[in-house]
Each structure stands twice: as structure tokens, then as C-alpha cells.
């Protein structure tokens, strides 16, 4: 491992802007741009062949936020390390603030308004939890992370906001936060026996939650999901119409802007949460597999970056963000195909919407940051290679 250290000393440009730019994973930037372009194409079609109101803002946002991603990647990783806890604290306070003074949208309190700006702290919280956990594990600095006792605090860090968000009620984001936390605990190296125990526990907890904790409309979503035919005109309508759109697409799709389900408005929310259904209708299974392959390639890069980091903060940060992206994609795809209850979960890069574009590109900026600063020596905690 001495060789690596020598590498760093040799690489003089590592701290210069040019050196950092060189280290950025441009392959990932390309993949992300491809997906976002695909999204723009879909949104252009969704508006019946118009740049407005969706496609053009989508492109503009992407261009803005991809630059932001690169800036995020170049900021010294120690800045993000230092920011981890304060950011988590702020996000936590905001989540509480939403619970107390939040605006109700569609029966759920999800955002608070500060002047003209709407803040959806739950979105912010997803990344903050990843940062906080990455820092926590970095600071732990133990060689054996197996015992449960090292993971109690991380679990609290993830579960406390998750429960608050679920209470809003936003089941989708809440469970995403909880899931990210759980997977990061797994990545950190907890013993398998606890993992198996947790899976069994989660199932029992779900059963209890279904009876006592969940709101009626949340329960309804679950029953509707299990049997959409029960409620064809209400909650089940979205799933039913989405499945019709997807099923009618076939392998090659019905053709761009030819999807009757999308174009005639049968598919609900075709520009946001159900954009993937429109993709599957118009471009078929072929288009769907293409998109999933791109996502998988991004995630494979994410994990490779995590592995290449010499410090645990970087490993956990890149790994956590990759898991977060995976949860986004799979929950959305499963939802539109009727494998998961309808929760407000957009498809990254394809769905219209600023806050998801911002948070996902910001998150990937952190992954890039790990790549750029993979050899940085963190002064706290356990150092790889020593």
C-alpha cells in the first residue's frame, strides 16, 4: 500500500482545478446526459410536440445542475465531511418545521415556504442522512464493524427523520430514507445475523404498522396496489391506466408520440411520476431496457468509485448515494408497473421537476467528489491502507 501513497505524492496536480477536472468521471457525466436527453425527448412528446411547458425547463435545469454537480465534485471533500452533521441537523429541523407549519399539498405536508421559495426538506434529508452516516462510520475507526453496538446511532440517525417524514405523511420518501440507512449499515459491515434478524423484524413491523400506524389513505394505497381492480376509478385508476399503457407498448413500442394512453391523457402524471410508463408505451420494452441499462451503468460506476476510495467516508458516501439512486429508480419502475404501491416518487433524469433533478445531480456530484478526492488523507478515523 505504500505504492498508493507514492502515487499521491507523485500526482502533483491533484489539488489543482485542472487535475481535479481530469479526475472527474466523465463517463458518468455522459450517461447522465444521455438519460436526461431521453427525458427531454419524452417530455417534448408528452406536451404533444412542444418544448413548453416541460421539455425546455428540463434541459435548462439539467444544464444548470450538471455544472453544479461538477462544482460539488471539486470542492474539497473535507468541506462535505465537515458539513455532514450541520446539514443533517438543519434538515432535521426543517422536517420538524414541515410537520409543524408545513403546507398541505394533496393531503400531505411536504414543503414549507420561505418567502417565494418552497423547500421540501425530505428531499434534502435523503442526502443529509447519507452524509451523516458516512461521517459517523469514518469517525468510528474500527477494524471490525460487525457488532450491533456500532450501528445503534446510525440507525437512529436514519430512522428518526424517516419516521417524521412518514408522519407528514410521505411514505415514499420516508421509507427511502429508512432503506438508505439500512443498506448503509449493511455496507459498513454489520454481521449477517443482524441483517437477517432485521429483515424478519421489518416484516413483522410492517404488519403492525399496517394495523396501527398508517393513515387510511396509505392503507388504501396498499390494498389498491394489491388489487387495483377493486378501485378502478379511484386510487387503482393510476395503476390500471399505467399498466394498460405499458402493456400496449409491446417490445418495440407504439412509436414516439403515438401512445394513445399518454397522448389522450389516460395515463396520469405522464410528465412526472409516470413518465417511465410513457417511455414503455411509446418505446416498448426495448426503450425500457435501454434506460435500465444506463441506470445500472451509472450505479456500477458509483460502486466502483466507492471501492476505489481510500477512506471510509468516501466509500460510504459514494456507496450510499448509489444505493439512493437505485432505490429511486427501482421504486419508480416497480410502481408504474404495478409492483409497488403508488408513492410520490419520480424517475431521476426522466421526470419533469426541479427538486428531484437538483437533489440527484447534487448527490452524484458527491459521488464524483469521492472519485476526485479518493486519495485524500482524512485525518479522522480509520485510514485504508495503513
Amino acid at each position: 500500500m505504500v505504492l498508493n501513497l507514492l502515487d499521491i505524492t507523485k500526482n502533483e496536480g491533484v489539488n489543482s482545478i485542472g487535475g481535479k477536472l481530469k479526475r472527474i468521471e466523465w463517463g458518468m457525466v455522459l450517461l447522465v446526459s444521455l438519460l436526461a436527453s431521453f427525458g427531454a425527448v419524452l417530455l417534448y412528446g408528452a406536451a404533444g410536440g412542444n418544448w413548453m411547458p416541460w421539455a425546455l425547463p428540463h434541459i435548462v435545469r439539467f444544464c444548470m445542475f450538471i455544472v453544479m454537480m461538477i462544482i460539488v465534485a471539486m470542492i474539497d471533500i473535507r468541506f462535505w465531511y465537515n458539513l455532514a452533521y450541520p446539514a443533517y441537523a438543519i434538515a432535521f429541523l426543517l422536517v420538524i418545521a414541515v410537520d409543524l407549519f408545513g403546507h398541505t399539498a394533496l393531503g400531505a405536508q411536504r414543503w414549507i415556504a420561505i418567502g417565494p421559495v418552497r423547500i421540501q426538506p425530505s428531499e434534502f434529508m435523503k442526502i443529509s442522512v447519507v452524509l451523516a452516516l458516512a461521517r459517523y462510520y469514518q469517525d468510528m475507526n474500527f477494524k471490525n464493524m460487525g457488532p450491533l453496538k456500532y450501528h445503534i446511532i446510525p440507525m437512529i440517525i436514519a430512522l428518526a427523520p424517516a419516521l417524521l417524514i412518514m408522519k407528514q405523511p410521505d411514505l415514499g420518501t420516508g421509507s427511502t430514507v429508512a432503506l438508505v440507512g439500512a443498506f448503509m449499515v449493511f455496507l459498513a459491515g454489520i454481521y449477517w445475523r443482524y441483517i437477517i434478524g432485521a429483515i424478519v423484524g421489518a416484516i413483522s413491523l410492517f404488519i403492525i404498522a399496517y394495523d396501527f400506524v398508517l393513515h387510511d389513505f396509505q392503507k388504501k394505497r396498499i390494498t389498491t396496489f394489491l388489487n387495483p381492480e377493486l378501485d378502478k376509478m379511484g386510487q387503482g385508476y393510476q395503476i390500471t391506466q399505467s399498466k394498460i399503457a405499458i402493456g400496449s407498448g409491446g417490445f418495440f413500442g407504439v412509436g414516439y408520440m403515438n401512445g394513445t394512453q399518454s397522448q389522450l391523457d389516460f395515463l396520469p402524471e405522464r410528465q412526472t411520476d409516470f413518465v417511465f410508463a410513457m417511455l414503455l408505451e411509446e418505446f416498448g420494452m426495448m426503450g425500457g431496457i435501454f434506460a435500465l441499462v444506463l441506470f445500472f451503468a451509472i450505479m456500477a460506476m458509483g460502486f466502483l468509485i466507492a471501492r476505489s476510495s481510500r477512506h471510509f467516508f468516501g466509500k460510504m458516501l459514494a456507496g450510499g448515494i448509489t444505493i439512493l439512486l437505485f432505490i429511486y429508480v427501482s421504486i419508480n419502475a416497480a410502481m408504474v408497473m404495478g409492483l409497488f404501491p403508488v408513492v410520490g416518487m419520480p424517475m431521476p433524469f426522466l421526470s419533469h421537476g426541479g427538486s428531484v433533478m437538483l437533489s440527484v445531480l447534487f448527490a452524484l456530484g458527491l459521488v464524483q467528489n469521492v472519485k476526485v478526492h479518493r486519495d485524500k488523507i482524512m485525518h479522522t478515523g480509520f485510514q485504508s491502507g495503513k
Partner: protein
Amino acid sequence: MSDSESLFNRRTFFLSAMGGLGFAALGLRMAKLQIFENSEFRLEAAQNQFNFTIIPASRGPIYDRFGIPVAVNRRDFRVMVVRDEFEDSKQLFKTIDELSGYFNVPYEKVEQTKKDIKTAPRYLPAQIVSNLSWEQYSQISLFKAQYPGVYPEMGESRNYPLGESFAHIVGYVAKANDAETKIDKDAKHPAIRVGKEGLEKTQEVNLKGTHGARKLEVDAHGKIVREIPDPALNPKSGEPIVLTIDAEMQQLAYEQLKGEAGAIVLMDVQTGEILAMASSPSYDPNKFVDGISGPDYKAYLENERHPLYHKAVRGNYPAGSTFKTLMSVAALEAGVIREDEHINCPGFIYIGGNRFHCDARRGHGSVNLHYAIKASCDVYFYEVGRRLGADKIAQMARRFGLDKAFDIGIPSVSKAHIPDPEWKQKVFKQPWHVTDTINMSIGQGLVGVTPLQLAVLATRLGSFGKEVVPSIIRPKSGIARRDWPSMNINPDHMKAVHAGMVGVTSEPGGTANAPFGIEGMKIAGKTGTAQVRRITMAERAGGVRSNASLEWKLRDHGLFICFGPADNPKYACSVIVEHGGGGARAAAPRAREMMKAVILKDPSSMKAYNPWENIAKKDGSENG
């Protein structure tokens, strides 16, 4: 590489594999929906995309034999509401009230409309008012914009221009009930009517045609995006029907029965075509088309003369003395009596220990067959019946078409009943008694016939024993059948019976002797008087009460069958006047009027209407 680093690598690898598996599962789900269930979902997408609105087909018209329309489609302007387009039922009912008030729709009908709307599916339009004038239609079309969800519509409605006289034959159409909409889903459409009675009911399949549809592309909000023309969806008009009925004869027959309850059936002896078949009293079929009002319907139901009942084919009456015609044929054929054989009639006869009376109290004296028919001697036929036995009588009655439900295309044609020992045992669980035979001999007792069957009897007598079968719908070929099989009856025997029947109408002592009215022309007939009540011995001793002194319901039925001209029979007629008193007084004069009119007009010799011929000709000229 440290332990924790290799552990991290293992776990990221594990997670990548899980992610890969997860994505593979998503891919499998895509395959399931998009490849294996593709056809079902494509169908569902098409169901979403397209909306079919029914265009009712024009119902086939019904004509009389000369092309006079008896059931037609009249252009109809009406106002419909589409329930889906109203925010709530309060607003819907408010609109209905407003429009109903504007067009003076009776309260009862408005309530009915509201009730219908509540039970009908939401997407179906409902009718508020129909039969609007062109002016009213224009007005509502002009103000349409003020009433969202209200649609003025132009359609067709069924009309029966000859109304009551054809009511029992043609029947009527009305809104389909639940059972009928189950068979034919299109019938739920408010502008579509289904046949409920008469030919409209039995010929429904041919008359209704094929309903068309408009194929519309709609979006999720039901807004029409565009209309997709599809010639395969155009409506096809129903088939026309041409009746054998001559509307003029039909109306004459109906007029003959004015004020009475009864039936007249007029037939062509050679073809069996029914030229008139009236049942009285009748009803107005036009009242049923848009739903008959409660009080009107109640009045029809409670009328003691049963206007809704098709007496010509359903009414069961004792044949009375008209039965003696076939008794004569049966006796001669069986050889139980000779034409010139005399039987003494003292006014009564003892058979099987019972005393049976003749209509003539003092008797007819010595009578032969000719006189027995002419004067309708009961005693003569009691004796003939005794000699024949019930089975032979029943057999001959059946050969003449009694005891048979002729399928002429009209619903509920009755077979009535001709008794025989076996039948009595089966129905009444009683053995046959000789008195049953005696009552049967004069067409009383258990003998039941319909006016249609009596007309067939007259026709078969008039055709010298041919098995003529009645019909009421003309074949598309336009050629009526004439080659009926023979009943194999000795022509001499037929002649003898004919002579007796001519005696009835044209010889002194004939029960219906009166001038026919056409110089040198005679008809052959037979009266019948069917007793409705039993005459007791005490009454007979004190003199039988006259019909005029009896309550209507207790009076005798008057019957008459005839054919003419007597020397070359072309037309046959049966008349029954319920509780009209004797056949000579109540039925014979009416039959005579019918025969006079039909012989003078001779409709069978005139060219009948044939709509299919014109079509064929048109095709021919186009080809040429």
C-alpha cells in the same frame, strides 16, 4: 488490503448483484406486461381510446298487400340529456324540470323520466321529451349552448297510421325491459324500441335491422378528439314486411264489429292468404310506443270486452252449429248416413237416457241432410253424432284444421280444443259419456274453436277439401301457394254439403236466408249460435228467454262461416260476435257485407305490392 476493505468490496459486490437481480425482475415484469399480456392491454387501450355511440337502424316498415303502410317510421324530434355532463343530480333535475315545463310535459311523465335516469347507466343519454315539432326543435337547438348536457336529436319513431284496425296483427313496439336488454344490449339506447306484441314481436329480428355506431376517439375526460369513419359500422335498415291483409277489407271488417266484441277472419280460398283479420274492440298501438299512461292502460285492462286480447286467433268459442258442416262431411264419408236418408225430428231425442232438445220446439219433422243443414236441425245431428262416435268426429274436425295452432307469424295463436275420450280422460280425469258425443255433434260442450280455425274450416269446405293453410305474411317471391294437398274427400259428399250451405243463405227455411245483394250470385254459409249458459228444464217448459232480455255476458255468441261465390268459391269468411244473440241475426249480415265487398273488389286478382321486385329490377337495370 485490509479485512474491512475486502468486506466492503464484498458487500458492494453483493449489493450490485442484488441491484442487477432487481433490475432483471423489472425486466421480467416488462416482458410479462408487454410481451405476454400485450394483446389484452392493446385491447384495453383501444377501449379507452375509442367510444362507440349507437346509431339506431331504421326499423323495417310493414305494408298491406297493396303497399299501404301500416307500420312506418316517422321523423321525430326529441331532446336528450347526458347525465355524465352534469355536476350533480340536483342540477340535472333542475334542467329536466325547466325543459319539461317549457314543452308542457305532463308531471307523471317527468317523474317517470327521472326514475329512468336514476336506474340507467350514467353514460347513456336519457330522453326528456319527444314528438317535438320542427319549430320546437329549432328553438331548443338555438338555445342549446345555455343548457350543457342537453342535446336536441333527430330520429325516428314508430307510427301505426291505421291504428286500431291493425293493432292485433301488427302489435306495437315499446322500450325494452330488463329481460330484453339482456338479450340485446343495444336496446338500452333510449331511441331504440323493441317489438312487444303481434308481428312487431315475432318478426323483431328481421324488422330491427342492424344498429350502426359512430366510432369516436376520446381522451380521458371523454372529450371527442376526432371521429373515425367506418363504413362497416353504418346502420342497416330492417327488412320490410308485406302482409296478405287488404287494408280496405281489414278496415271494413273492423267497422263491421264496431260496438261489438268479436272477430272476423276473411281468407282467400285458393291461397289461404288472410285478407282481413279483425278483433274487436281494439286498442291504439301508438299509445304504447312512448310508454302508455297508467290510466289508459288500466282502462284497457278493465274493459270487460278485453280490447288487448286478440280474439281472432286466441279466442276460444263453442263452434255451435257451424260444426254441423264438418259433421255432415264426416257422416257421409263414414257412410253412417246417405244423402237422401231421412231422420224424424219431433223436437227432441232420447239418447243414453237423456233428453236432448232441438232448436225448433215442435221439431222439423222428417229431415234429410240438405234440410238438416239449411234449417240447422239439432236432432238430425244428434243421431248422426251417435252413429259416428266421438273419435270419428274429432278426426274429421282435425282434418279441417280445428284443434291446430296455425303458425302464421303472430304470437299466441291458440289451438283451442277438439275433445275426444282420450283427451277428456287426460284433462278432466273423467270417462267419456255419450252425452259428450251428443253435445259435440252440434259444436257445443267441450268443443272450442278460434275464429281463425273457423275461417280455415270454411276455406277447406270451399276448396272442395284441400288442406289450405292460412298465412298473413306474403313471401318475398310474391307468389302465393296454391298447390295444396287434397284431403281425399268424395266430391259428391262435398257437393251435398255445399248445397245445404247454399240453402242456408238462399232458400226459404234457411237459417240465414236473405238476398245476397249481387245479382245472380250466391254464397254458401252456416250459422251458429253458441250457448253460453245452460238452459234448465224449468226454463224450457216456460219458454226459453230471449237474448234481448238477458244481461250481455249471458247472451249467446253469434257465429257464421261462409264462402263464395257458391259455384266457384274464392273467398271464405268467419264471423263471431260475442254475446250477439243468434248467428243469423248477429253474424250472418256482417259476413254478407264482407263477402259482398270482397267479391266485388276481388283483391286476389289484383297485383300485390312487392318491394323486393323493385330492388331486383333496379339491380337489373344497373347491370344492363
